[in-house]
């Protein structure tokens, strides 16, 4: 089975059912499928072939959802780029995967115009929001996306299949410890396997209505749409959780049954008065990215008494690892559960030997959901994917330290590297440090995560300045905000005379955390 079949099958079985609600717009499965077919034709006509990469650089929108399925229908590989990504990084990613197409809007194209001209692989740019007098990046062909979706004489019937299920379907770029993003390669089979497992344990049904405020560039957000289309449900897609009452209003008005959150959203929701939050239709809430504090679990249940709460854990490299059945929440509130259906998880020591309960070791994941590797990074791939029990099989070494209890429930202990998790997103300190080091006044910089009640971890920059130079906190933050995605911009800056070093002369993150790592 291929991922685009999620949409195609629902379009055949329930063509008139509302598939997607986005702002004022409501689209049926039939309408979405036809729009996606038209865009697929347009992609093929522009020269996109089987296996080519096409990027979607849009906010959560009807156009973004249609684009994902259109790219798959064209036999190509989609990647969704965070809409707050700045031009330099956008171009790095487009170069890295040699993208043939880019689907974006006029505002973003204008902001990155000159840089896009340098991406040689790019054949054409599809623009939402009307072309008008818009001038494309030099040498790039422009296609009016709205015109394509709304007809333009393109046939809307299904296209012949170009792929098989072990072909790539998606690249998802994640923060890498080297400071450069890495593209996680996922096949159709990987995605179908993960979506099947997750919808099985969530007991999803066609009546489910999912509210997603998570960006489609985040696999957790992407899967809300993929999974809902698979089981023929409805997705209410919001741009963000910026104005929290908007989400509450939608929960109530659209009679939402499933609400995926991250701990940062829980912290904001819990500041709400329970009288204004009456959502009796809500069947479940899922949480991932980091564990919820026990107190937040209790208060979330008070706020949403009809909803079951699923604690989950995962990483982009295999989508999801584990979930805690809601009835276990009172018994083991700090556990992130067990492996999901059709997946095996176990804990190993440094030599790869399986460990008994209570011993701390690295978590290993085995299943059809495990990625094919990082795009054109064989060495990094080898560190994560190691030989499994069957000939040729690869299992995922997560880099996360866990222990399990006697009944096999997992408990997160820590990470083997210094990746920071903030607002549910992974941030490589190195990527932020690279930006800080480019500030002329900065002699040395280190980035650490500090505990934060809302963000989980907040990013803190610790900086020593060159002699005789001056810099204020706002100067640093402004510099970062112009170059990094929103969630990577530090929340605070601490200036020190010099950074502490280890015996071998490396900057000691441990000592930095001990001296300036407390919450402010």
């Amino acid at each position, binding site marked *: 089975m291929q991922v685009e079949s999620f949409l195609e099958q629902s379009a055949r079985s329930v063509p008139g059912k509302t598939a997607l609600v986005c702002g004022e717009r409501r689209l049926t499965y039939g309408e979405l499928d036809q729009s996606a077919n038209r865009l697929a034709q347009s992609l093929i006509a522009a020269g996109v072939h089987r296996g080519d990469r096409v990027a979607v650089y849009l906010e959560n929108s009807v156009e973004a959802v249609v684009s994902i399925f259109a790219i798959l229908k064209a036999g190509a590989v989609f990647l969704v780029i965070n*809409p*707050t990504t700045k031009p330099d990084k956008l171009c790095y990613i487009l170069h890295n995967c040699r993208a043939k197409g880019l689907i974006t809007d006029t*505002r973003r194209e204008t902001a990155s115009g000159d840089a896009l001209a340098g991406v040689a692989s790019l054949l054409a740019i599809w623009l939402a929001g009307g072309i008008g007098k818009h001038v494309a990046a030099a040498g790039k062909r422009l296609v009016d996306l709205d015109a394509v979706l709304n007809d333009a004489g393109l046939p809307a019937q299904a296209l012949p299949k170009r792929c098989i299920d072990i072909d790539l379907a998606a690249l998802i770029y994640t923060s890498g410890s080297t400071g450069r993003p890495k593209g996680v390669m996922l096949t159709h089979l990987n995605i179908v396997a993960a979506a099947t497992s997750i919808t099985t344990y969530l007991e999803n049904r066609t009546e489910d209505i999912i509210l997603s405020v998570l960006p489609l560039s985040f696999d957790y957000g992407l899967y809300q749409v993929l999974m809902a289309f698979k089981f023929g449900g409805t997705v209410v897609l919001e*741009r*963000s*959780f*910026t*104005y*929290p*009452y*908007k989400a*509450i*209003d939608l929960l109530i008005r659209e009679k939402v049954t499933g609400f995926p959150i991250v701990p*940062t*959203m829980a912290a*904001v929701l819990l*500041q*709400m*008065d329970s009288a*204004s*939050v009456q959502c009796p239709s809500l069947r479940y809430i899922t949480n991932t990215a980091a564990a919820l504090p026990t107190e937040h679990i209790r208060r979330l249940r008070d706020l949403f008494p009809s909803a079951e709460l699923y604690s989950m854990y995962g990483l982009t490299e295999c989508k999801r690892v584990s979930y805690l059945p809601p009835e276990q929440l009172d018994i083991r509130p700090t556990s992130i559960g067990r492996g999901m259906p059709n997946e095996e998880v176990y804990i190993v020591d440094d030599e790869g030997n399986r460990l008994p309960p209570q011993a701390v070791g690295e978590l290993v994941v085995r299943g059809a959901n495990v990625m094919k590797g990082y795009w054109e990074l064989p060495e990094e791939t080898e560190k994560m994917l190691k030989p499994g029990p069957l000939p040729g099989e690869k299992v995922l070494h997560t880099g996360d330290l866990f222990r399990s209890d006697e009944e096999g429930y997992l408990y997160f202990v820590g990470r083997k590297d210094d990746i920071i998790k903030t*607002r549910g997103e992974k941030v490589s300190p190195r990527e932020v440090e690279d930006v800080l080091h480019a500030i002329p006044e900065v002699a040395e910089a280190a980035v650490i995560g500090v505990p934060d009640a*809302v*963000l989980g971890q907040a990013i803190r920059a610790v900086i020593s300045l060159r002699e005789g130079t001056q810099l204020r906190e*706002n*100067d640093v*933050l*402004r510099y970062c*905000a112009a170059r990094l995605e*929103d*969630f990577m911009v530090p929340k605070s800056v601490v200036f020190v005379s010099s950074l502490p070093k280890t015996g071998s002369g490396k900057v000691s993150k441990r000592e930095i955390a001990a001296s300036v790592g407390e919450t402010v």
Partner: protein
Amino acid sequence: MPLNEELRQFVTDNFLYGKSSAGLADHDSFLDKGIIDSTGVLELVAFLEQRYGILMQDHDLLPENLDSIDNLARFVGSKLSRN
């Protein structure tokens, strides 16, 4: 300081890190411009409560009230006139 300017000052200091807000029109959406997130909204709420003595209700946390300098000024103005 007039209300609009005071609100602009807060947005400049806290969301633009002191960068000139010359490119930000009074009617520009903070969301569209990518200068606010949900933690930014919490900072904004705390500022409005402290500076103007407004008690914010949950249902006030909507873009219609908070997502541009114009919307903010209208919202703060109407809250103050009700007190």
